[in-house]
């Protein structure tokens, strides 16, 4: 052991050698990683597009011309259009409260915000059935007022909101905590109203983190299957979102149409990934703020 620390040995050793493995180890690790990615990520993605186009471009396009597909696309867009802004507003409010104030039960709130990530989506869906369903807690009341939540659009929206709840808040809480309140206080002492300070100081400071989280939130809102599947009731043309529509087509052995619709979701995922990478590359500081000690 003593030789290892002899000055001569240290001086000759190149600094890189301490952390770098032998050539063949590196090669092996890289090969395994690439093989794994190819097998589990790239191959399925290629398969989606290959299957979708298996019977030509005409058959591919035909999958989107039927009324049920239109309805599914509309419903998915509608759900995302409600769930994402809702979670955007809620996420900003919650992270503002958590990052900038001290109050009793703060840790509990932080834990609760994370809950949707730790609960299986199917369970999330079931919760809504148990609360709003015909046999559920609020069922009789809803029935009496002729309101339908389960097996209808409101249920789908609620389930989606629940599942995508944490995205914005989790991104913004560390970011806002790191930024503290000094800039807002400075704005207030300069005469700005609370709203003016929020618009001109807080929002610009979190804009890229916000955009990043909205992107992820949107991808999840459009792609959510489990929770939505439980509350939807799978009524064609009425309560089918894109992921549910894919499942129905697949179960009917309509592979071309199923994969064609799936390719839409895969495309969405790819675009999301691309924009996400761009944001991460361009605004790394702001997005990763929570992880930084600063």
């Amino acid at each position, binding site marked *: 052991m003593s030789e290892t620390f002899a000055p001569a040995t240290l001086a000759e050793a190149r600094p890189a050698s301490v952390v770098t493995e032998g050539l063949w180890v590196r090669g092996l690790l890289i090969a395994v990683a690439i093989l794994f990615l190819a097998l589990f990520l790239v191959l399925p993605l290629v398969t989606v597009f290959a299957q979708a186009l298996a019977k030509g471009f005409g058959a591919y396009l035909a999958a989107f011309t039927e009324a049920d597909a239109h309805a599914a696309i509309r419903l998915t867009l509608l759900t995302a259009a409600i769930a994402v802004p809702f979670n955007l507003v809620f996420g900003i409010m919650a992270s503002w409260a958590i990052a900038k104030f001290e109050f009793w039960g703060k840790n509990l709130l932080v834990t609760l915000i994370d809950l949707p990530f730790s609960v299986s989506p199917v369970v999330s869906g079931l919760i809504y059935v148990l609360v709003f369903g015909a046999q559920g807690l609020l069922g009789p009341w809803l029935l009496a007022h002729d309101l339908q939540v389960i097996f209808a659009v409101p249920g789908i929206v609620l389930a989606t909101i629940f599942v995508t709840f944490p995205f914005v808040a989790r991104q913004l809480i560390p970011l806002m905590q790191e930024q503290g309140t000094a*800039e807002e*206080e*400075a*704005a*207030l*002492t*300069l*005469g700005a109203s609370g709203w003016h300070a929020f618009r*001109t100081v807080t929002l610009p400071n979190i804009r890229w983190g916000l955009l990043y989280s909205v992107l992820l939130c949107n991808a999840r809102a459009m792609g959510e299957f489990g929770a939505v599947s439980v509350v939807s009731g799978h009524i064609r043309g009425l309560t089918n979102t894109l992921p549910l529509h894919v499942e129905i087509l697949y179960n009917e052995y309509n592979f071309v149409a199923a994969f064609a619709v799936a390719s839409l979701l895969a495309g969405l995922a790819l675009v999301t990934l691309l924009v996400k990478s761009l944001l991460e590359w361009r605004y790394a500081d702001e997005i990763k703020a929570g992880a930084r000690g600063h």
Partner: protein
Amino acid sequence: MPGATEGRASERTGGSTAIRVENLSKTFDTAAVLHDFSLDVRAGELLALLGPSGSGKTTLLRIIAGLDFPDDGRIVFGAEDATRLPVQQRAVGFVFQHYALFKHMSVAENIAYGLNARKRSERPAKAEIKRRVGDLLDLIKLSGFADRYPSQLSGGQRQRIALARALAVEPRVLLLDEPFGALDAQVRKDLRRWLREIHDRTGQTTIFVTHDQDEALELSDRVAVLDKGRLEQVGTPDEVQEAPVSATVLKFLGDTIEVEAIAQGGEVRVDGRLTPVRAPGGLVGPVKLYARPWQLQFAEGDGAHLQGLVRSSYRTQGRQRIEVDRPEGKTVVVEAADTHRFAAGSPVGLRITGGHVFPN
């Protein structure tokens, strides 16, 4: 800032009270930070709030600004009770310890922020805002930096921008929280002198918080010494140095040597030998004598009040500081002219030439 100061000239003269802090109390969770705290701030003065960390000085500054609210007591601006006035309506300029510049705005946008935040009816015209930003940039000697961003500036430059931003709204009072705390020694010194100049030129009533005695004594017209949420003493730098009201103030204002002494009939004796220090009337019996390092001289025989062994010495700026171990185990620091070198271990006698006594 020519336009900004003319209106205030009348307020400045006569040293009338600009801000009155009355019987302020503040408790965070269960810890009291301010106890029944009162202080008058004179118009046009540069007042230092000096105290160790945890003395409540920053809390006091934030309460004056309206960023915190007291549990009890009042803040009066001129004749107006401002205790419940929201921060936006107090017209204070606050400079934060870490500047709190708006990162995504240029220097010019930062300085203009307070003017742009005003209601449309009270907002100056674009050209007027631009002119004022230009004037302020001249004042802080950063003309030509208008289009830079805070990340492109040094700490000292950021501090100056933060000051200009606060001055832009023509505040009734300028509040600075540890304004030089985050800067290195040389920049601190330059900025101190510069802040004093700016104050002399604008006559802006200014309160600044610091834990650095030199900063407070060099910069301010008056120093308020805080300890544990109470005002120990307020006075000019000369007053607090020459006539400290308590051992706390004395100790906080610089290095001190503590010696057991006996007071009787106004005279103070150490080890039975008379010192030139006078005890206030009524102070009789065992007392503590506090002297500065330069109030001790080396002396021999009966001239010495204290005995000790030289532990070490070092030179600093033409003087030398000698650490002397006293028989009872305490080490005292003596400051002397850099003429004679003392070998470690040699016995020396020390003569007290001045100091203050306080009850034990």
